[in-house]
């Protein structure tokens, strides 16, 4: 069975797998093919891949055509799907709710498409959960980025030339990324506050030694996978009201709020940005799903009244090497989980909870209920 790792587009700094992980695939008995220059963005030369037994292919199309499994980070171009072998498997982030065309194309080509963002949030599937593994690093990178951008130091320093006050960091939305952002900012010595609509989060925030901000917004819910449910209009208003003051006192605001399968909630309004101190920094980590911050733009630094709004859509790319390592590990864990060592094939059991969640198309049909509902 052949597995192919095409090179990502140029703006992607991460790579799908590192040689160490490629070796594990080889050990599993797969024929591993990588596109030339796969690791160049993280300073890994092709040699290192061939050393562990991978084949370097200089023809992307040929490889697409012959591979039984294609793994990548970002969604493919529509044209590339046409190149894929029938009955092959394609694994990547897909954004299936918004990319109906791609999904249809996959079904047409009879390719089994797996969407990494739909790996269910159950304990057993955590090792394959790329959303978590990337969000985690993104949370770290967001803080590093903010600390780089702001013209203050994060920690407090009492020195002979006076006391440098610590930066105040406010994290909105405490999922995986938010928690890591809290942890990192705390480590660097900032005063950290955080807010989330899900009440269970309070204990988690405290378990990192940060302060949870209580804003009364009435009843909130979470799904059985721990995702937040969307708020009502009124609740959003209450939340914005409650946050305005904290934002205006904060040097750094990091927003991570997401709602599964929907555009990100708009939490920080322009009015709130105006109220902030000139020189402060906002990192909008939800910028690629619509943004939590009014005025944030993907992959831009927006200057608004002295406030810098950072809207990097690829924060994990800032720590590309680690991000590549864990993404590759996620892929490997998924394939290994369903790999039949004797027959060297994948056990494609659609009754399995994990596959049921993340397989979008199979044997020419859109099989995922959620995606089907939204098309």
């Amino acid at each position, binding site marked *: 069975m052949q597995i192919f790792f095409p090179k990502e587009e140029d703006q992607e700094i991460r790579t799908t797998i590192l040689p160490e992980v490629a070796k594990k695939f080889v050990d599993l008995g797969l024929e591993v093919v990588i596109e030339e220059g796969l690791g160049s963005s993280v300073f890994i030369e092709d040699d290192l891949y061939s050393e562990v037994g991978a084949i370097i292919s200089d023809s992307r199309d040929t490889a697409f055509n012959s591979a039984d499994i294609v793994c990548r980070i970002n969604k493919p171009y529509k044209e590339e799907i046409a190149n894929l072998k029938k009955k092959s498997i394609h694994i990547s982030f897909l954004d299936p709710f918004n990319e109906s065309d791609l999904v249809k194309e996959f079904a047409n080509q009879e390719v089994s498409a797996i969407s990494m963002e739909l790996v269910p949030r159950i304990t057993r599937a955590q*090792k394959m959960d790329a959303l978590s593994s990337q969000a*985690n690093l993104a949370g770290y990178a967001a803080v590093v980025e903010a600390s780089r951008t702001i013209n203050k130091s994060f920690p407090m320093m009492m020195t002979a030339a006076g006391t440098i006050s610590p930066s105040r960091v406010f994290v909105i939305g405490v999922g995986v990324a938010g928690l890591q952002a809290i942890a990192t900012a705390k480590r660097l010595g900032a005063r950290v506050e955080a807010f989330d609509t899900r009440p269970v989060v309070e204990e988690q925030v405290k378990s990192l030694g940060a302060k949870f901000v209580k804003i009364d917004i009435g009843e909130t819910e979470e799904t059985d996978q721990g995702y937040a449910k969307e708020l009502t209009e009124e609740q959003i208003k209450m939340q914005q009201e409650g946050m305005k003051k904290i934002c205006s006192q904060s040097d750094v605001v990091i927003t991570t709020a997401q709602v599964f399968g929907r555009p990100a909630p708009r939490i920080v309004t322009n009015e709130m940005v105006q109220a902030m101190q000139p020189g402060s920094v906002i990192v909008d980590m939800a910028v690629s799903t619509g943004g939590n911050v009014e005025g944030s733009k993907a992959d831009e630094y927006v200057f608004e009244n002295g406030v810098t709004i950072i809207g990097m859509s690829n924060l994990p790319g800032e720590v590309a090497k680690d991000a590549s390592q864990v993404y590759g590990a996620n892929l490997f864990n998924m394939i290994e989980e369903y790999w039949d060592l004797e027959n060297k094939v994948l056990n494609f059991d659609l009754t399995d909870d994990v596959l049921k969640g993340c397989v979008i198309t199979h044997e020419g049909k859109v099989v995922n209920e959620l995606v089907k509902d939204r098309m």
Partner: protein
Amino acid sequence: MDISILVNLTYIAASILFIVGLKMLGSPDTARQGNLLSASGMLLAVVITLLDQNIIDYRFIAGALLAGGIVGYFAATKVQMTSMPEMVAIFNGFGGIASLLVGSAEYVVSPLNNPALMGAIYLTVLIGGLTFTGSLIAYGKLSEVISGKPFLYKGQQFVNGLLLLTILLVGVNMIFVQGMISPNETLILLISLAFILGILFVIPIGGADMPVVIALLNSFSGLAACAAGFVITNNVLIVAGALVGASGLILTNIMCKAMNRSLANVLFSGFGAVSDSDTERSEEQGEVSPISAQDAYLILEAASSVLIVPGYGMAVAQAQHAVRELGELLEANGAEVKYAIHPVAGRMPGHMNVLLAEANVSYDVLVEPEDVNPIMETVDVCMVIGANDVVNPDAKENEGSPIYGMPIIEVDNSKTVFVLKRSMASGFAGIQNPLFFKSNTRMLFGDAKETVSTLVSEFKG
């Protein structure tokens, strides 16, 4: 010098040896010498007593001594380690019956009109007798000759009340009134009543509580000896008996505390009766064995490899600093200490790393499950600190479990597991954890930070 002075001075010496011996028995380092000291006190007392000039015939004494000694020797050396508590119970019973016999022997030859003496004899016989049968029942329950279940019946209180009243009346008759019934009848009646009292006293108590009961009976046999001392006006009996009586009572109390119960609770409530629902659950899952921090300390102190497995509970308790300190103390004590970090412990990737780094735990001592699982058998103690799902053996054993297939830290393969958590509540995955019911698992209930701090102070002594 008058021989009786010598005898008495020797008794004083013997008493001192008992006192010092008992003191030394209370600390692990000196317990063995303490026992030896107290034994030599006993030898001294017995030998000097044999010099008593009033003793007419040594043959019987020597014979009985020898016979008793031989029986005692074999009983003590041949018994299995695990049956030692039973053995102690039965020895104690023999001490009781011996006092009873001494009391009876004196009763037979004493004038009846000395209330003080009669009172002493009454107490000797009563306490000795009840110690005897009580100890036999305790023996039976421990060795499972008699069912360990608490034995309860209707009207128990009424029967007991009647019994105590009768005993009281016999006492009044014997000490003050005299002659309502003949002396011999009185004696036999008293002995029978004492025997019955002993049985009725112990039989309702569950097998698990027997150690406490034996400690209490031991205190009684001391009191019986003390009473016998008054009967024959012998100081060493009074001193030794009173020492044992008092220290036994304190020890009983300490043992109750270690079980987190009151003495009254042990004696007067059938154990099973209190917590019916508990019993039911534990029948499903097996039994949970809690342990006190002090005892955990003693095990840790002796461990030469310790694996710390932190989880979300450590974060909630913010126990990381205390844990680090404990780790350092364990290392200073000569143990090898590692921290096994499960990839999903806590609530975010690397949660444990953040906390342990904050507490200054070196990266070098962090290990991953893959590395440590293969050598888990060699680990003396695993300390599971607020982790739950990540050490749940269901993940490898129970196909039906929602976490089946997740790699875990297989702490259940180590020699001893301590689980530090506040309750029997479940973790993130919301499922019960069979680890808690395994035979090598001990639950250290309480907030993780407090528990670990207690361990730390134990180490600092």
